[in-house]
């Protein structure tokens, strides 16, 4: 493209990669933030009014500019240039954030800046510089190293969720990756998922020895540990010959689909198996008539788009290239702007259930206000996680919804805790439970 210009102002400069292990790859992005705060404001076209105006929980909670992406990238830029040192505040700024992707999608509505990757890279830098992650994260890392799960629970208890009614196959095309939380904390999600698969006539297998997906490790910048885990997990899945890896946790979904390839420098297509969330699977089965949801659920219900299933869920392709004239990149880069997120499928599913009155919150789809729990936040900043959930519950109350449904155990647990603390009587369910209830005889 630049070769077509009659005048070449200067030579192309930097080589760069979309590689978060080196913050220098994102100096361009961080230095081009225009402080429009589109990363925080709900997309103006969808702005719901004087309430619920923003979608960045960190900025909303801590309020100083430093906590929004507009502040974080300025801080990151200064650090990348060696002009600013880490301190406790800097760690709080970088880590009191769910990396929910609202900023990335908000910015990419108008510009070509990689905000999410910049923020991920800052966490990697924190670890590289020896100041991160937060102590709570180190505890989680220790649990994973020792017990292959985040909670430090006994590894042998990981399959305790399997009831007698559930019979995983020895070999199948579909591998159900349960994840730590559904295995240990939200067994109802694992059980519901298994029942749904059975009802649809789909055989599924489990990993012979399922370990944590490493979401927290990756998200807080412990990349070496995360990479090792990723390689191990992918190898194990490939050994099973699975064609599809099905998962009912949004965070895990994002790890397998997006961040494993990112860690290993490959693309999602190169994994060798398809990564599907339960809602993608169920949506297809319902539309083809294989799965019938007949039992009514009379409720005024709203759906919360779990970040990792929506904004952050587009497949990954590694990229390296040159940035030259006017910042143009060669080769052409098709950026992940969140437009292909899994927004429609869960809604189609819920609308297909008799009796469900699906209403939308003021902030919906790519404008969703994160529950506050994900990607290491709950561990290190439990108050912030609860605060964010309470904010979201205000919206639930605003539209008079009785039931709140999401597609991630993190969301479910954080909301459930906030509901209890706030004394509301909103019913908090995972979509797997709702589907399962509707297909039961």
């Amino acid at each position, binding site marked *: 493209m630049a070769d077509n210009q009659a005048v070449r102002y200067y030579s192309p400069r930097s080589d760069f990669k979309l590689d978060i292990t080196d913050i220098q790859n994102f100096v361009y992005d961080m230095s081009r933030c*225009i402080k429009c705060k589109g990363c925080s404001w709900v997309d103006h076209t969808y*702005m719901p009014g004087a309430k619920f*105006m923003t979608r960045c929980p960190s900025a909303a909670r801590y*309020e*100083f500019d*430093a906590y929004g992406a507009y502040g974080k990238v300025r801080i990151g830029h200064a650090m990348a240039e060696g002009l600013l040192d880490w301190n406790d*505040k800097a760690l709080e700024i970088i880590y009191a954030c769910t990396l929910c992707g609202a900023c990335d999608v908000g910015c990419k509505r108008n510009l070509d800046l990689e905000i999410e990757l910049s923020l991920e890279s800052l966490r990697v830098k924190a670890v590289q510089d020896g100041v991160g992650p937060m102590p709570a994260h180190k505890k989680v890392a220790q649990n994973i190293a020792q017990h292959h799960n985040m909670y430090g629970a006994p590894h042998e208890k990981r399959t305790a969720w399997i009831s007698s009614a559930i019979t995983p196959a020895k070999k199948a095309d579909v591998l159900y990756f349960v994840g730590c939380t559904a295995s240990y904390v939200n067994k109802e999600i694992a059980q519901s998922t298994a029942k749904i698969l059975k009802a649809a006539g789909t055989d599924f297998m489990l990993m012979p020895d399922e370990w944590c997906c490493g979401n927290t490790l990756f998200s807080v910048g412990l990349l070496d540990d995360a990479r090792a885990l990723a390689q191990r997990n992918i190898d194990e899945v490939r050994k099973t010959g699975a064609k599809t890896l099905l998962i009912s946790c949004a965070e895990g979904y994002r790890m397998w689909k997006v961040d494993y390839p990112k860690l290993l420098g490959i693309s999602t297509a190169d994994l060798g198996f398809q990564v599907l969330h339960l809602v993608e699977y169920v949506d297809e089965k319902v539309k083809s008539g294989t799965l019938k949801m007949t039992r009514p659920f009379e409720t005024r219900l709203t759906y919360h788009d779990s970040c990792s299933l929506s904004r952050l869920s587009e497949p990954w392709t590694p990229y390296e290239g040159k940035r030259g004239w006017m910042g143009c990149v060669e080769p052409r880069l098709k950026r992940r702007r969140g437009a292909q997120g899994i927004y429609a499928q869960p809604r189609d599913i819920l609308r297909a259930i008799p009796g469900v009155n699906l209403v939308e919150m003021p902030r919906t789809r790519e404008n969703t206000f994160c529950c506050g729990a994900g990607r290491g936040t709950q561990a290190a900043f439990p108050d912030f996680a609860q605060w964010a959930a309470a904010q979201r519950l205000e919206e639930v109350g605003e539209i008079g919804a009785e039931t709140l449904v999401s597609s991630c155990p993190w969301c479910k647990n954080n909301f459930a805790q906030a509901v209890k603390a706030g004394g509301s009587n909103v019913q908090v369910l995972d979509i797997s439970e709702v589907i399962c209830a509707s297909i039961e005889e």
Partner: protein
Amino acid sequence: MAISKEIYKALEAVVGAQYISDDPVICEGYRSGPGGYEAGLGYERVMAKVPGCVIMPKTTEDVQRIVKICYRNDIPYVPYSTGFYGPRSHPHVEDALLIDLKRMNDFVLDEKHFYVEVGPGMIYSPIQEECMKHGAYVVIGGGGAQASAIANLIGDGWSPLSHRIGLPHRRILGTEVVMPDGELLRLGSLATSDDPFWGECPGPDLRGLLRGYTGLRGCLGIVTRMAIKTLPFQPERLEPTGISPNTALALPEKRIKWINFVVPSKDAQVMAMREIGHAEIAGAVTKVPLFWRAIAKAECKEEFWDLWSKENEETVANFFIVRVLLIGYTSEEQMAYDERVLMDIMGELGGQARRTKPSDESWIKNADSAGMWLMCGGYVSVDYVIETLTQSPVHGPEYAEVKKKYTPPLMPDYGDPGWFQSFELGHQGYSEFLVYWDPDDDTNPVDQFYVDTSKMNIKNRFYTSLLGPHQPLYLTGPKYGPNYHEFLLKVKNEFDPKWRSHPPVPLAHDVFVERAPWMHHMKDWESPDDLMK
């Protein structure tokens, strides 16, 4: 002089420990650049500083107390609503207190009496949404839906919707201003009551202190509360559609509609705007620079350049679009009437209607100003002036001529003559000229171009928006009024004798010229040796 512990404690007592910080990382988060409006340029590099301390008040009383503490202790301070306006909204001296007004986002709407009342933390898109729910609308300034409405109304405040709605100055109703010494000035009906519905003051109108044609960038007080006039709209809902990045408002076709017309010449564009104004129809009328179409079509920066590189001076010079927004304020019949009149006019001028999407991406609830940074990474408007349709169409080509000398580093736009449109039903005209560059390039010529445009305006006797603090005051002052700068400085000295409110504004651009060696050869005007006093 950094803010001492005692003064910090005094300020902390006003807002609480949670809302004040002098942590260097927190303060770094408030850096102006290097990206942003007018950023990545010499002015920003030389003049903008990271604050020494940041404070976030909630009420007018908080602001008063903060300003009084600063004034008593000689602490320079800068009011900051969103920070979007670029370096001019950021501290220009070391150890300044940045007063971040984002918490002041109260909102009240009076449906029957067509106004909203807001704090400086309130931006346009939520205001517009609330207005539209109640049969009203406001102008979303071209600066964007993310601009603070108050900051925009005392700084800029127009868009194609100003074709009907008019000067922002008249939409400023009851207002509260914390003056530079911390005293409170209540304007409009707030001067004698607590009802902000009316903007005129008792006798001489001190709303004149809020702005000139453009604003004072916070050097003459902090507006903490403003009632803003809204205008009656039409009653049907505009539904948001699409998923980011392709979101837009679906327009109720019988009550609102954009129509794009191709007309045969620039004269026809001007004539169309004039006739539409004289016919007293339409809600918005504007031409559209050709490259905005490329921006709208492009999925990424590189695609923009693919599209743009297919254009040339001829295609740019021969692209004549007039974009008209019809609004059925009264009824469907009224919009139909407006359309018939519009078609009459276009028929007389040889205009052809093009198929136009029944949606609004920009102007009614969103103003996609952020897209201005897509192409190059650097952007500033070097004029956005309301005058008449006599000045507006001839203004842009003069800029284009000056621009040639400075391209590169300015973006090649094949001599694009900028943007103009009709205002106030044709009583006024508007011209805006936008320039773009890569901030990694040598940007000194952009700084020089900027001041060169001021000289061009003076030479050609154009009115311009870049007066007051926006260009060297001692350059423009003698040539407009004449000597408006003397009166401005006298007023500044009266209300802020210690120059604590955003120093050294309004002399900031003068100081920049003194400090920047690459600007010295531009200075061919007189100014005092000691610019700060």
